[in-house]
């Protein structure tokens, strides 16, 4: 499994090892915190890997909105005279709460947890997870051959035909 990213205009790849390691870090976070969901995503709004209860969730919308949340609060941070964005965001609900942590400039970690779980525990464990994940992110390297394997001519041709069939008003 490879996950591709563009960083500083260049395409880079998160290695298979790093991907599985991140998944393990999320599992560890869930196991130790009793949180419901841990999601690692990128600031462009793509969900990368998640662990926990996500069957009933629209992960695409959830990630897009969370990335928008970071975008809005980064601007708020700037407007109050701060050079860098907020390191974490916390939204407290009646039953469930949300904790969002930036992972470097390009990614973030989201943790959804019941209010029976102490925020302090989530904070500590989430930051511990972010530190570990960051080590793998730093090892990103430029690579584009994997995409060409995925997007060969036949795939592109079949995709174009399927789009022609599907993208019509019903």
């Amino acid at each position, binding site marked *: 499994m490879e*996950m591709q990213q563009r960083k500083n205009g260049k395409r880079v790849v998160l290695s298979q090892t790093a991907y599985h390691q991140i998944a393990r870090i999320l599992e560890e976070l869930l196991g130790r915190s009793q949180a419901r969901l841990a999601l690692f995503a990128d600031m462009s709004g793509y969900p990368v890997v998640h662990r926990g209860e996500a069957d009933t969730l629209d992960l695409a*919308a959830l990630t897009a909105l969370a990335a928008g949340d970071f975008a809005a609060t980064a601007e708020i941070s700037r407007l109050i005279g701060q050079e860098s964005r907020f390191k974490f965001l916390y939204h407290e609900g009646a039953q469930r709460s949300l904790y969002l942590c930036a992972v470097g400039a390009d990614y973030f970690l989201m943790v959804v947890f019941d209010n029976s779980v102490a925020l302090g525990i989530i904070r500590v464990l989430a930051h511990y997870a972010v530190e570990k994940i960051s080590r793998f992110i730093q090892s990103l390297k430029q690579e584009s051959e994997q995409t060409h394997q995925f997007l060969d001519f036949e795939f592109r041709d079949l*995709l174009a035909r399927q789009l022609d069939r*599907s993208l019509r008003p019903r």
Partner: protein
Amino acid sequence: MHVNWLRQEIVFKIVYYGPGLGGKTTNLEYLHAHLEPALRSRLVVLKSPEERTLYFDFFELALGAIKGKKPRFHLYTIPGQLYYAPSRKIVLRGADAVVFVADSQSARRQDNLDTLMDLEMKLIQQDKTLAHFPWVLQYNKRDLADIEPVATMEATLNFLGVPHYEAVAVQGIAVFETLRGVIQLLLQRL
């Protein structure tokens, strides 16, 4: 663009850009309402109290597997008003292609041009440029009375000769064609 080998997914991000009240949200709403429900996620619409797009509108178009691989398209709009510039910058981040929705009304000529220049500036900040980026033009609101001739709009906005579509998004005219066109262009450029 994201390739997720584990889930065998490839995800593209397409952004509808253009001046405020030009019809970007209308495009997305029409697409969402007229696509097969199995192909689309929930439509997320974040509007201000004045019914203007605040952050963005969004939905995911998920096609069936091709050779075991699942293509997905994330469709976003940006808020058109100038004072939401930071939101536009972020939504544009990582975009694989853009649909520029221009308002055909004569009074919006300068707004169209200003917003197109704003798009170029934001692309440059991402080490990209309109000259080497997949994008198409949609001349929207062709049903209204006081509109500019397409030739005039072409001369003003389409200095790079990209594909253009004459649309009435509120009636669905050329909405699907525009999306098909931008995706075809995107696939050609990969």
